[in-house]
């Protein structure tokens, strides 16, 4: 490839990425504009006297710390249940190939696709009979985990496939039990893949909306996604405040993505095609 073609392609790529990422730029830019600047015609495309105070105002006004805390609690709960239950199952599904394993894998794949907004009706009715709605955050965690678990198993299975069987057999010869070999040898070797899968599950729990919105009625226990809609409905004109909320909510996710971009991309594609 000639230098000129290379440069030209690179330039086109940058322009395409800039167009695609413009909504994110617009979010951050709007979040530091004054109320009158949001509605200026033509719109201002560059920052002019940034209003960082917007963040402090909306944090207090919309109770962001409390909502973010609830999101963290839910995401942590989901990641724990999913991680503990998912890793072992993924390991077995990666180790063997027979009819039973194929059926288990098929079941997991099919459960991965169920739309939450459709599953929430029977789950809600069942939970209210079982009395689980008394503990709304816990109930939401249980429901969300059933959604993230199949996905996590598929991702981890791909990670376990990369661990050579011989290493595990050597550990068994050395006198380890199966459980010992799994914990001491296989888990550490597949660690990176599992951690990335867990991170993706955590991000999904952090941004979850449908189950929380349907199950958690009490304001004080709701996550940031609901907090945002709660603020959005009556304040449709305060776009700088809404964008400051959105930026606060999404920046941790984007930061994790920027740092671990390659691993996350690999994890996501492995989950979809294997």
């Amino acid at each position, binding site marked *: 490839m000639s230098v000129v073609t290379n440069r030209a392609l690179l330039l086109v790529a940058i322009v395409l990425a800039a167009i695609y990422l413009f909504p994110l730029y617009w979010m951050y830019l709007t979040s530091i504009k004054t109320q009158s600047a949001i*509605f200026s015609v033509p719109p201002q495309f560059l920052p002019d006297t940034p209003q960082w105070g917007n963040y402090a105002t909306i944090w207090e006004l919309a109770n962001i710390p409390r909502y973010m805390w609830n999101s963290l609690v839910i995401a942590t709960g989901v990641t724990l249940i999913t991680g503990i239950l998912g890793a072992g*199952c993924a390991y077995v599904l990666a180790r063997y190939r027979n009819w039973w394993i194929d059926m288990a894998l098929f079941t997991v794949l099919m459960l991965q696709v169920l739309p939450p907004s459709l599953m929430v009706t029977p789950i809600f009715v069942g939970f209210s009979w079982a009395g689980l709605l008394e503990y709304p955050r816990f109930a939401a965690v249980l429901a969300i985990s059933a959604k993230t678990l199949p996905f996590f198993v598929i991702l981890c299975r791909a990670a376990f496939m990369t661990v050579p069987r011989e290493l595990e057999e050597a550990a068994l010869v050395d006198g380890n039990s199966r459980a010992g070999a799994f914990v001491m040898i296989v888990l550490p070797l597949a660690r990176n893949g599992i951690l990335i899968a867990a991170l993706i599950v955590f991000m999904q729990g952090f941004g979850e909306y449908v189950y929380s919105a349907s199950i958690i009625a009490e304001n004080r226990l709701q996550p940031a996604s609901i907090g945002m809609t709660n603020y959005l409905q009556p304040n449709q004109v305060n776009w700088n405040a809404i964008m400051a909320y959105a930026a606060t909510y999404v920046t941790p996710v984007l930061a994790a993505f920027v740092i671990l971009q390659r691993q996350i991309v690999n994890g996501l594609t492995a989950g979809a*095609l294997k």
Partner: protein
Amino acid sequence: MRRVLQSMRDGIGFDTMLVILTLSYLLVFAGLPLIYNVVISFQTVDVFSLGTLMHPSAGVENYVDIFEDRQAETVLRNTIIFTLGSVALQFTLGFALALFFHQNFTGATWIRGLFLAGWVMPGLVVGVLWNWLLSGDFGVVNYVLDGLGLIDEPVFWRSNPETSLYSVLIANVWYGTPFNMILLAVGLSQIPEDLYEAAELDGANAFQRFWTITLPMMRATIGAVIALGTIFTLQQFDLFAAITQGGPAGSSTVAQYWSWELSFREFDFGRGAVISVLMIIVVLIVSLIYVRSTKAETQL
């Protein structure tokens, strides 16, 4: 007892236990709801009868109600437009971008990765962003379209019943395109280079190479990507909640949103379950196609 414990630590019991634990969880929190869903679709379930496991029977009344509802036709049409439109556009744009970034210029992989930033964001935040971008009076999208001479007066994307569905569709295309692109890029990178070299020696031009090598070699990937795109689009809920809430006057309601609305806005869980049952059947059929096509892929 000792033998059982021994096998838990060392034998087939260990493997079985690990799988059974996880599958039981999925059975309780996904399998049972699937069956229970069918049961309550034949019952009258409202706020007063919520606390019990079984509710007064409704026969097929819920199903009849749904099919006779005057919203049903709009919802069906919206669901088809939203799904086909989203999948077609996501796939086309995703494929175009994948082919573009496949040219291996400096920084191609890195810049391609930036597109995934959209995909990792919570759906609700993406919806709120597009809600602002597509605002009628002060939305930047209208400003750009006006500047390009494509529109004469502002389009009220979200509040005009003619365009409300498309405002969600646009957001969904933005949200889903990167994932299509990255999966198709994986497929492209698996095609052996020498096929192209051979074709070039035989005098095939770029267009012929695309039709005779790229497309046939990508068949399994394309099948998987289209099936996955359909599944994700049928799952889409957050964008509706954040942009139009199915409105105005139901003009942008799709099946998965209607089902939720019936259950959690009108508290008619029986009718909500009817749509849920019908849509889950559709999703499962699409997934069967997906599982089959990925199976074909791994055997290649």
